[in-house]
């Protein structure tokens, strides 16, 4: 018997009657999703602001100190910031090392925890959002939901594909529970709500 068959047979033998699932609880919804979302991003160590349109978004990004200091940038949001690297010309993600700022569009934001959903289709290379020293995320104001239960009802998981929720900058508290921002991924995460 193969390992697969042996394991499945053992699990079948061990299973009792099939238990039906209970209904999911009604999640709390926020009246002010934008305000709650901005607060949540700050609470998880990020920076957050609301801008009315892409022109204001572009100006806000260019005013960021990390943008001004950066020489290698990528923007995947048309009209916001600029790219010094042509991602379509990069075949090997290792060549992204040294990327200083990445501007990445989010498909949806979650008010309860400041998470932004980035579908893999937005990323020419998966590594972009994590290898960049600083991350700028954008999300449309109309694309904010209250909580993760609503988020999963809204997003579509690409198959095959990839997608990631990012909530704030990379962090660790593995040394004496002291919070340190910038473990392996982005050292800062700035989120703009557009509209």
């Amino acid at each position, binding site marked *: 018997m193969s390992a697969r068959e042996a*394991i499945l047979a053992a699990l079948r*033998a061990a299973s009792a009657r099939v238990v039906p*699932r209970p209904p999911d609880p009604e999640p709390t919804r926020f009246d002010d999703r934008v305000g709650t979302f901005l607060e949540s991003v700050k609470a998880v160590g990020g920076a957050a602001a609301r801008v009315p349109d892409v022109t204001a978004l572009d100006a806000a990004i260019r005013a960021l100190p990390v943008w001004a200091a950066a020489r290698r940038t990528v923007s995947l949001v048309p009209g916001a910031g600029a790219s010094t690297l042509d991602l379509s010309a990069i075949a090997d993600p290792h060549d992204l090392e040294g990327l200083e700022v990445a501007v990445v569009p989010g498909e949806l934001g979650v008010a309860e925890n400041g998470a932004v959903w980035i579908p893999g289709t937005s990323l020419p290379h998966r590594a972009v959002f994590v290898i960049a020293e600083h991350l700028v995320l954008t999300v449309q104001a109309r694309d904010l939901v209250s909580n993760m239960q609503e988020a999963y009802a809204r997003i579509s998981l*690409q*198959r*095959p594909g990839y997608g990631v929720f990012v909530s704030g900058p990379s962090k*660790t508290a593995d040394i004496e529970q*002291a919070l340190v921002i910038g473990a392996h991924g982005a050292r800062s995460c700035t989120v703009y709500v557009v509209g």
Partner: protein
Amino acid sequence: MNTFHPDRAAAFAADRSHAHWHDTALWFVREKRDRGAASVPEWERLRDAAAGIKAQALSNLAAYLEEFERNATANGIRVHWARDGEEHNRIVHEILAARGVRLVVKSKSMLTEECGLNPYLEARGLEVVDTDLGERIVQLAKEPPSHIVMPAIHRRKESIGELFHEKLGTPAGASDPKLLTEAARQDLRRKFLGAQAGLTGVNFALADTGGIVVVTNEGNADMGTSLPPVHVASMGVEKVIPRAADLGVFLRLLARSATGQPVSTYTSHFHGPMRGGELHVVVVDNGRSEILAREPFRKSLACIRCGACLNTCPVYRRSGGYSYSYLIPGPIGAVLGALRDPERHASLPFASSLCGSCTDVCPVQVDLHHQLLALRADVAARGILPWGKRMGMRLAGLVLRHPSLYRLAGGLARRALRGAPGLVRIGPAATWARQRQLPGAPSESFREIWRRGGA
């Protein structure tokens, strides 16, 4: 090796200031968890839902795993099956060896610890680098993790500073967590860029979409799976959940229970390999089907490894992760260890006050303290209780069965406590009495007061 929990706990508690610091640090995490839980009005209903979804999954694991395999395969994921740790290690090694991998970067996985993957690969000439900061610290120190979420919580920053000075060349005496983290970041960035494969665990496997989900705060799983072209993910059979939408329930609970965060920084959903790469998922049994078959303990397989039961446990906080003879410490580790090897871990079900705090904080409602109690009975039934406990129980049984003996013993005890209170610090009672102050003995028993109609 001495596996007796009281002895190992005594060794940890001997350094009183360190033990006190450990207790306080873990309680701090517990308090953060409380604030996280309190921020969600429907918290208790979420726990009900999470427990219910896990019960549903565990009641039909084979079917969900087959559904997962079918959908994952359609997504271009290669699914492998391993009956035990040895088979798991062999599969992982074969994948890596066939692709000429020399350096692998690994993000946290208690399953690979359970299987002993690192030493297995190292013995075959591979370099395995743990990339979670806490895991890296204990790897450099050649120690096992002492906590499932915070692997190096037993170490003070000064000792990590010394370790990094020796291994990574940080300045002597430097112990600032920021500086040490930065040094690890620089060192591990080189490893990420040089690795040919990334290994991860699996937090959730999704039956209906054939994907796996991995969560981290540091981004190490994302670095390790987006640079090297080969990703191998190891999961226990119990990690599968019926629907991707169920993540909405679990992710609202997981990080809040673990650290008090509203969600982990990175929640990555893999529904296929990276462009031009490969994604392998190894599904491991290694004793889980046996636990599944034991109804009273089935729920322990619902554990999502948040660590909340460790942080709240008065025994874990005061005795440290290394006092547990099993690789997973705390209440859940005591249960899983005693189920896996009752002889070796016979003292673990007793490493609990049975206060039930673990059960109360568990986001998936594993009835931990009930399981610990049941496992005590299991240890007794196997005849492997230590002599003192066995005799003590026999004596107590005798006295409690015979009212006259009970009266006699009560009278003797009251007299002894009044006359010679030091007696309890001699003999087998000494351990129990060492840190306790006894109340003054009453002059008469409850029965005597009742007899003369007093109150």
